[in-house]
């Protein structure tokens, strides 16, 4: 009897380990995460507008239909990414995600404070290569460090009314995401 209870206790402990291991491994094992869904639609290091979600099709679940969205799927192996996004009239935001969909940085138009959101995205190693003093002279541009080499930049512009959707899409159409030298 005691022996059987010990076996069950051991099994439950082992089950706990299996549980933790599978939860931690899930982000690496997932084949249908946001990055995988966007990979066939978006060439690397360029800004691509996403279709507004409808009842029939939606690139990702739980997308806000009041927003026009554009995605830059980046890869920092050949240089840094320079993002330039003009602001729409209502509300514009930029969110940075790692390869595994963790939002590590987000900024909206008001926080950016100018007529366009301008950012340089680089890995910590590339940031270390930026010459001393360069940071200060280039104070105009915000520098963001990406924890991973690849990831997603998602640009969202609000259409406060359905009729303003073309305007929001137009604002995003002028956004640029291109690879640049580290200097």
């Amino acid at each position, binding site marked *: 009897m005691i022996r059987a209870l010990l076996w069950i206790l051991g099994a439950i402990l082992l089950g706990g380990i299996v549980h933790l291991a599978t939860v931690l491994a899930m982000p690496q094992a997932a084949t249908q995460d946001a990055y995988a869904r966007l990979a066939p639609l978006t060439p690397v290091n360029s800004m691509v507008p996403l279709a507004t979600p409808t*009842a029939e099709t939606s690139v990702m*679940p*739980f997308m806000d*239909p009041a927003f026009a969205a554009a995605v830059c799927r980046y890869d920092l192996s050949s240089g840094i990414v320079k993002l330039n996004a003009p602001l729409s009239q209502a509300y514009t935001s930029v969110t940075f995600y790692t390869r595994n969909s963790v939002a590590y940085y987000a900024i909206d138009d008001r926080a950016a404070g100018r007529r366009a959101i301008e950012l340089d995205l680089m890995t910590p190693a590339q940031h270390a290569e930026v010459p001393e003093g360069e940071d200060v002279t280039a104070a105009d541009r915000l520098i963001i460090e990406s924890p991973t080499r690849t990831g997603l930049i998602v640009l969202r512009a609000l259409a406060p009314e359905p009729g303003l959707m073309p305007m929001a899409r137009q604002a995003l159409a002028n956004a640029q995401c291109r690879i640049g030298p580290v200097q």
Partner: protein
Amino acid sequence: MRLLFGSCFALLLAAAVGLGTTWLTISRGVAFGAMTVGAWRAWPRTGSVDIDPYARATIARTGELPLGTGDGVAFYARTDDTGNVLDGRCTFTISGTTPTARYWTVTLYDRSGRLVANTLDRHGFTSTEIVRDVDGRFTISVAPRARPGNWLPTGGIERYVLVWRLYDTPVGITSRTTKQDPMPAIVRKACS
């Protein structure tokens, strides 16, 4: 023989317990640090690097991109204020005031995060397009058939989820208390 039987049994039970609890937590979307206001729940940490492993696993499986903390915060409701499950064949009203935010949107999804087809092609409202009364208050009728005022069609589906997104808001960053941030009340009216 007894040892072999015992270890086989233990391994099977371990696999069942481990995988079963993982499946349960991921499919229900368990995450820590929830902020509950009435029927609404938000997980502000999910939009930052402080995201917990359960939320990470959930978003990896569903394929969604969480709202970044510097962008806004999303509140989810699956029931009304008294715990009745949101049923698309019934009429629910959403009314009251909202926390401080530059803009907000409310959207109706099915349980897997898809928009619901309807004749109006309406899936939600934004804070600018909603019709308010003279005091600035509003009432949204979530119902299968047309209603006067702000009608949010359910398409008659059995279960749905309401998502209230606040953009450019201090909620979730500076505030942790629910008293500061009143969310609109969800009340069930009639079922057809």
